[in-house]
């Protein structure tokens, strides 16, 4: 991953090589191969046409007569395109056959729901039960196909991880399935690729591909955290380590942050597993402290961005459905941020 790129959206759309030409999985890689082959063919044919044009205008008399003859039309206008296009079609279909590989039902499943303007992500067990609720982040195992069960809660969205696959619409009232597989570990950006109103351009997510064993461990840990009961009112998790000078003592108190989180209305829209915060309207915050981005793939995740987002998310992502909590003091924001950082 490009070190200078902090957000999922930036990573999906910028960088070199361009993410669409930098496949990290079998599906994207066959499409990329096909795209390069078609581009090469396009260059070749353009070259032939330009050469023929040159001959027609400036070429020797004998060549010009040949070019204008009926034979040239039969060969260059009919036989050549017929053979080349048929060959390309057959090769292309064979190459992309894996794109339509049937879903066996044995793949791991992740339900991704498009919401205005973020992605709800739920990991399912083989029986189809939700074991981990998360948001704006997709974790995948290396070299193992995963089926994304795509839904929408409101309008048509579209999910696109340029490094891994093509786009697939998320249509209200319908479940689309997208098979993805990654052949390289790393972090890849994703975006909503269908205009969905308001801050559509700021609706993204981050995909992280882990070694299969690490993925299994990660999923088991997340599932255990989500299933584990935390006494109501208690602060789940430990205060997080933040990149800061150790000589400055932590001045913010996660326990106060939890009280504020509960009492200022955060809990009405956000869920934290095992606590009385069980709102479902907004992203699940059970693991927000370990998230790679904030605001749906748009900001890096650290205390500064967390405080800035809570205080004034409306100037960062105008029109998003979380109000700016500008009536909270900076101290209160600090307490809440310290609490959220501890939610790993």
């Amino acid at each position: 991953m490009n070190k200078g790129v902090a957000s999922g959206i930036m990573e999906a759309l910028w960088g070199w090589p361009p993410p669409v030409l930098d496949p990290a999985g079998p599906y994207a890689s066959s499409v990329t191969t096909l795209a390069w082959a078609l581009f090469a063919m396009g260059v070749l044919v353009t070259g032939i046409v330009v050469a023929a044009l040159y001959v027609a205008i400036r070429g020797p008399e004998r060549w010009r007569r040949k070019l204008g003859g009926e034979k040239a039309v039969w060969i260059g206008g009919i036989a050549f395109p017929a053979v080349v296009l048929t060959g390309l079609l057959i090769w292309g279909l064979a190459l992309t056959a894996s794109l339509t590989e049937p879903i066996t039902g044995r793949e791991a499943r992740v339900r991704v729901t498009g919401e205005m303007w973020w992605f709800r992500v739920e990991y399912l067990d083989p029986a189809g039960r939700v074991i981990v609720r998360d948001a704006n982040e997709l974790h995948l195992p290396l070299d193992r196909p995963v089926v994304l069960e795509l839904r929408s809660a409101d309008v048509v969205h579209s999910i696109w991880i340029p490094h891994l696959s093509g786009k697939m619409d998320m249509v209200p009232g319908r479940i689309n399935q997208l098979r993805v597989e990654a052949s390289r570990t790393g972090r890849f950006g994703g975006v909503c690729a269908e205009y969905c109103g308001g801050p559509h351009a700021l609706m993204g997510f981050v995909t992280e591909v882990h070694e299969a064993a690490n993925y299994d461990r990660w999923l088991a840990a997340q599932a255990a955290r989500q299933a584990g009961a935390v006494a109501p009112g208690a602060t789940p998790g430990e205060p997080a380590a933040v990149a800061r000078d150790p000589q400055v003592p932590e001045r913010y108190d996660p326990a106060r942050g939890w009280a504020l989180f509960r009492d200022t209305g955060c809990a009405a829209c956000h869920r934290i597993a095992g606590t009385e915060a069980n709102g479902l309207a907004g992203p699940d915050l059970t693991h927000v402290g370990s998230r790679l981005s904030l605001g749906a793939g748009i900001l890096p995740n650290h205390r500064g961005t967390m405080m800035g987002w809570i205080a004034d998310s409306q100037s960062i992502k105008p029109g998003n459905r979380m109000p700016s909590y500008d009536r909270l003091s900076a101290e209160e924001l600090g307490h809440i941020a310290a609490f959220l950082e501890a939610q790993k």
Partner: protein
Amino acid sequence: MRHVAVAALLTVAACKPPPDDRTSLPADAAERGKAVIERVSCGSCHAIPGVDWPRGGAGPSLEGFDDVGLIAGALPNTPGNLAAFVRDAPATKPGSTMPPMPITPAEAQDVAAYLYGMKDE
């Protein structure tokens, strides 16, 4: 009378402009500083000239910051103070509500260079 005026004019013309240490910071430092600002997203809280998005409203706008006398109303606005402040504000100005930033001291100097180099007047 005319001689006096000419002499006065010459005297003024001979004055060198005051040395300006702030703008003599290396240009590539400012460029690196901007990359750091975008990476850690200082814009989540501050409107910063040259940064189109985000322009958060939680912290003060940094328009015209290079002309501000005191950082956060407390510290003399010098490159050293500014670099220390953007990296770990509470340690530099006790009581500051700006959180410490995940950047190295060298990166903090680059950020300071960018903030001084902004030409937004």
